[in-house]
């Protein structure tokens, strides 16, 4: 009987939700509303550190919250820099180079009216990193762990000064700090110290405040008129975020006027969107679609000539065409104009002849192909059109004498295998993993993948790449605190990575989004994150 009651309970719960969910937009007459369809299947976690990766940070993280530092997303023509956020300035101790002092902005209020100060910074760091703290939250801690890994300790100096010590010398701290979000301790107390309840009424310092959250259906944010940064007070009154994982659904929703802006329209819909006068915007951003490769004993890719040949065998222009033009041929990990690009001598291009020459030098040829097996996914965030693209490259490879075989996994399974490293038993005999990557900070983009000290799980070096010069430059970058100097060291590191053909780099996504012609004021930054505060929808 229990089971029956259970099911009946569920039925009535379902019926209840029919009656009670306030689903229609709560917009008041005359309000200007911006409605965005995201690609995620659910509203990212709103209680602090968002879930759902970059999209969570893009739409929830930097809208509801601020970090001590932030990305300057107001330019479309250059890579965004780190600028002051809730901290007005910071410095690192000359003596040990591990102790950082952050001077906090004064007079900043949370959405709930409480004051932001040094205590709240300490409280938030404990929330992520001190399991014994009452406010410690496992879920937020997990989500934040890519950014908090280098932190050793933190303390309050005075009401507007905090000191953070890193585990080892790490000049990249300001990058990480940008994605560690500050939420209001007062709100957590008010909600009975329950993070799940905070999720429906979060309180940050960001330019938007959460008005309403209907899980899996919509999040409605309203303007924070008191935001500390007067330049970033939203131009729209209300921001509605709708999860729509299905690409065709997003297109249909935009065309029918259900939303004003869609993320990642599918390449084959571009023509139709253009015909219907939609704006298509795109820009380079730190995304790369590569094969991360194994250089272990059993891998044909251990031989740098084979790696180079593979890089030369890909017809990237054809791929760009396949992607409706919304991709850029890769010349390395980072894009050509990026400050970390450097001066590699190995020019990544489409050159079948050279590829075949290198392969035959390495002892391979059309009759004796180099056989590689790579792990690919059927879909996934940032993976673009994995099936089509992999198929395409397989054909390219075949023409020069590389036989590529696939193991197709779903996205989460692929991520788990990437996290395990090429040397783990389950990855035996796999020579590459097609996991799209980012270079939004030097750690994940260059140091963490190229340094031999950063083999998984201590970093992102999947395939065991090892080059003493790369290690040396990686260490040097971590100890170079001057931003311009650091960029130079990173450019040298990138030069080595490309000359070693460390990975097979294919294309950069151009992050297309489609918008109704009435959407004005959007500047697409060269970033995974975007600022929607200047955006406004003109009345019809």
């Amino acid at each position, binding site marked *: 009987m229990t089971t029956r009651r259970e099911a009946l309970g569920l039925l009535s719960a379902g019926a209840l939700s029919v009656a009670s969910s306030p*689903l229609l937009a709560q917009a008041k007459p005359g309000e200007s509303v911006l409605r965005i369809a995201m690609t995620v299947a659910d509203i990212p976690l709103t209680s602090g550190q968002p879930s759902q990766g970059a999209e969570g940070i893009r739409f929830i993280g930097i809208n509801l919250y601020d970090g001590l530092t932030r990305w300057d997303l107001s330019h479309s023509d250059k890579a965004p820099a780190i600028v002051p956020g809730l901290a007005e300035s910071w410095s690192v101790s000359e003596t040990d180079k591990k102790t950082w002092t952050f001077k906090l902005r004064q007079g900043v209020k949370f959405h709930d009216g409480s004051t932001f100060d040094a205590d709240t910074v300490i409280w938030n760091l404990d929330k992520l990193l001190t399991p014994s703290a009452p406010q410690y939250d496992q879920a937020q801690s997990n989500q934040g762990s890519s950014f908090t890994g280098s932190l050793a300790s933190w303390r309050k100096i005075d009401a507007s000064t905090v000191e953070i010590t890193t585990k080892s010398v790490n000049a990249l701290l300001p990058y990480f700090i940008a994605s560690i979000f500050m939420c209001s301790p007062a709100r957590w107390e008010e909600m009975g110290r329950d993070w799940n309840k905070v*999720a429906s009424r979060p309180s940050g310092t960001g330019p938007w405040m959460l008005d309403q959250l209907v*899980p*899996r259906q919509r999040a409605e944010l309203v303007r924070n008129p008191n935001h500390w940064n007067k330049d970033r007070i939203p131009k729209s009154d209300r921001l509605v975020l709708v999860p*729509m994982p299905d690409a*065709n659904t997003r297109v249909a929703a935009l065309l029918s006027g259900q939303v004003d802006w869609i993320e990642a329209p599918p390449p084959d819909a571009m023509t139709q969107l253009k015909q219907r006068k939609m704006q298509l915007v795109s820009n380079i951003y730190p995304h790369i679609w590569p094969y991360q490769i194994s250089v272990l004993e059993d891998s044909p890719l251990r031989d740098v000539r084979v790696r180079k040949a593979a890089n030369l065998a890909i017809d990237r222009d054809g791929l760009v065409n396949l992607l409706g033009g919304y991709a850029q041929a890769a010349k390395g990990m980072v894009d050509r104009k990026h400050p970390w690009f450097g001066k590699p001598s190995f020019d990544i291009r489409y050159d079948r002849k050279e590829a075949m020459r290198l392969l035959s030098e390495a002892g391979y040829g059309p009759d004796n192909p180099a056989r590689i097996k790579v792990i690919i996914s059927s879909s996934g965030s940032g993976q673009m059109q994995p099936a089509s693209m992999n198929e395409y490259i397989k054909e390219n490879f075949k023409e020069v004498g590389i036989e590529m075989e696939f193991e197709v996994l779903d996205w989460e399974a692929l991520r788990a295998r990437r996290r395990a490293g090429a040397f783990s038993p389950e990855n035996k005999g796999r020579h590459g993993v097609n996991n799209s990557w980012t270079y939004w900070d030097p750690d994940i983009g260059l140091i963490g993948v190229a340094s031999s000290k950063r083999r998984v799980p201590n970093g992102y070096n999947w395939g065991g790449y090892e080059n003493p010069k790369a290690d040396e430059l990686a260490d040097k970058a971590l100890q170079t605190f001057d931003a311009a100097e650091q960029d130079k060291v990173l450019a040298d590191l990138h030069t080595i990575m490309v000359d070693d053909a460390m990975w097979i780099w294919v294309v950069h996504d151009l992050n297309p989004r489609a918008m109704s012609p009435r959407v004005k004021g959007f500047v697409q930054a060269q970033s995974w994150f975007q600022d929607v505060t200047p955006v406004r929808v003109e009345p019809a």
Partner: protein
Amino acid sequence: MLVYIARRILLTLPIAIGVSLVCFALIHLAPGDPLSAVLPEGASSEVIARVREAYGFDRPLPVQYLIWLKHVLVGDFGTSIITRRPVTAELAPAIANTMAVAAVAVVIGFAAGIVMGCVSGYRIGKPADRLVSTIALSGVAIPHYWLGMVLIVVFGVQFNILPTSGMGDGGIGSLFTTWNGFLHLLLPAVTLSVIPASIIARSVRGAVAEVLKQDHIQTLYAKGLAPTRVFRHVMKNALATLLALMGLQFAQLLGGSILVETVFAWPGTGFLLNTAIFTRDLPLLQGIILALAMMFVVINLFVDVLQTVVDPRIKRI
């Protein structure tokens, strides 16, 4: 009869326990690490161990099962790994959305099935019957996710007169109250209705033929009995069976709508199931399968009992 009903309900109990065991076992057959979904890029092994413990995945399986069962019995289906919301909170709106489209599909199927069945039954063995029977058979043989795509191509792409995906922006409340909501419901419901329509058509065809064979009807028929009278006879005889069929079809649709929901991006249980599978959200996956299977068991039981009440001549077991 009461004894039969009591017996029937009692017999359902072991099935329910078995179903819960299968649900649990299924999830623990899953290859790959369930935690991969909650861990960010580059999580250290220490973080991984901590999370594993926090989610209880380090306990022995029988213990995990008992803990899970205990919670399920009090209505706690656990918490989604990905969203951290209770699984029941995830399930409730999804079930409501699927029920909405399944219910409309069954109603459409019922109406279409009765029309087809009557045409067939009156003209049994004639070309009309063969034609309608073949159509009915196609209803079962057609891959209905593909039928959905065809409908999208026709009504969404070529003529562009009907919305082809999602539920519109009004949510479930607007499906039956606004024109736009109803339009969103139309294509998925019609797509799902073909199976119930075929099955009901076959059943009605048989029932009509049966009634027409009866001697007194034959006599009346010869005297010019109105087809509506025959129809009333048919309904009197077959209504219980037809209602039961509808109930069972409704239950099948609840569990089997995943393909059509995928085609139309309908935010119901199938869509949730898909999300749970591809994000490896095991508690959610377990919860959906269990809830849907239990609803299936309960609806079956309900239909069975109801049929016994309506028509005590039907003897079972």
